[in-house]
């Protein structure tokens, strides 16, 4: 493949607020921002806790268990990287640790026709390139 024909993935651009998430993912640990003051998780990371307004925020490892809040089957690639990936599943997963704690992700290793809202899922890992690993989810028992 020539240099011009290479299609690179869409990569995150971490900053001081978000790098813990991607550093954790590289080690296959799902880390979510956690308030050191009130103990609540929040995602995406922000400089201040929505719940208690503390700036004393860290990261907490979560189990990677959750349920599908909603999903869709992407059938159009909005970036060249996804041209050979469609159809694939974009989902919002609600993590087990806290009601309403949700993230955008992909569902992998699943029968596209069988996925339902409420399905239990477990984190797994998709290595995007040398630098980044994406937390994605697969059906429990799937």
């Amino acid at each position, binding site marked *: 493949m020539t240099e011009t024909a290479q299609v690179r993935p869409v990569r*995150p651009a971490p900053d001081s607020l978000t790098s813990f998430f991607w550093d954790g993912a590289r080690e296959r640990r799902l880390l979510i921002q956690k308030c050191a003051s009130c103990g609540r998780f929040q995602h995406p990371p922000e400089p201040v806790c929505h719940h208690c307004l503390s700036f004393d925020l860290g990261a907490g490892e979560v189990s990677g268990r959750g349920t599908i809040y909603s999903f869709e*089957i992407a059938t159009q690639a909005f970036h060249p990287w996804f041209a050979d990936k469609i159809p694939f599943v974009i989902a919002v997963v609600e993590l087990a640790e806290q009601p309403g704690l949700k993230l955008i992700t992909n569902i992998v290793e699943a029968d596209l026709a069988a996925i339902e809202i409420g399905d239990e899922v477990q984190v797994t890992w998709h290595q995007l390139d040398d630098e980044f690993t994406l937390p994605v989810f697969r059906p429990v028992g799937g």
Partner: protein
Amino acid sequence: MSGKQRVAIVGVGYSTVGRNTGLSLDTLTAQASIAAMDDAGVTPRDIDGVVVHSFPHQYVSSTHTAAMLGIPDLAFYSSSVDGAAYAVAALHGIAAVASGSSDMCLTLRTVHRAGAAGGTALMGGGENAGVGGQFQFGMPYGSFTGAHFAGLYMQRHMAQYGTKEEDFGAFAVAQREYALRNPAESFFHEPLTIEEYMNSRYIAKPLHLLDCDYPVDSSSALIFTTEERARDLKQKAVFFDAWAMGTTAEADFSLVEDMTHSSPFMAARRMWSKTDLTPSDVGVAGLYDGFSFIALQWLEALGFCGEGESGPFAAAGNTRADGIIPTNTDGGACNVGRRHGANFFIEVTRQLRGTAGDRALPRKPAAGVVSNAVGGFAACALITAD
């Protein structure tokens, strides 16, 4: 009535609108402004307020707009890049006139076709630079654009209430019926069948292509003024009765707490608390249809049908001209193109003041409702004929 001054809509106008007009954002903005001033019978020297809403990457400021038009001095100006489309400009303009900050306010929404494609347009810095901010938690997964929250919202409604894809399709079919009576503005001139809707390709299943508004270059302008000044102008004035914004606690549309009860419910509840009118007083609606599910969520939020019932409600024809609430009588943005919220205000104004031509409803409405956006932020307003 919420403000100190009653606020009238006295002029409406559009720019040249097309898939690729070749016209700059500035040119489109000036065209729409001049069209609205002509409609109202006023000149730039009558206007002392300019309010715009823009995408951040397609920004035409209020003060630049005023300079282009030769407005000598602004008593009020505001340029927003955040929130519920044209309705943000409208509600700022209403607030300006109602509070006495402006006597006559020009409100604008200008958009280039590529504007809401989002995704790569928002990435900046090229693909190798990566995506920062909240987008780093969506785009690497292929969640780029409005279509990607829309599919999630539809799926959730379908799972929760048994709504069918055909129900969303019925809304699209009804909108096309209106569009056929609006040939000058609509980009579509053939009837739409439910089969054609169902056969249109998926963008993000269950979202079909024909659930999506039609991207165009456009500018839309409306002029607001006080009741006193409105009485002397060219058009029969219509009046804002109540208005409200609403948001969710979560900024990311895909991460709102409850996708089937997002910001339209907050805005609608707030708006109804400020008026004696009820949904049964409203004879025409202009409900945002960037994706068809958005209009359905507004039907529920505004109380035209019960929560969860918008699918069967639309499928039964209740948004048609002879239905319970005639909705998007210009054809909606799916047919007249993405005016990013302004067309709903303009068409409801035309219905209420009696300038809708062939689209005049069989039961002339005394009040109309308009709405913009969904998810993280929304806004709506009630407009009355007198």
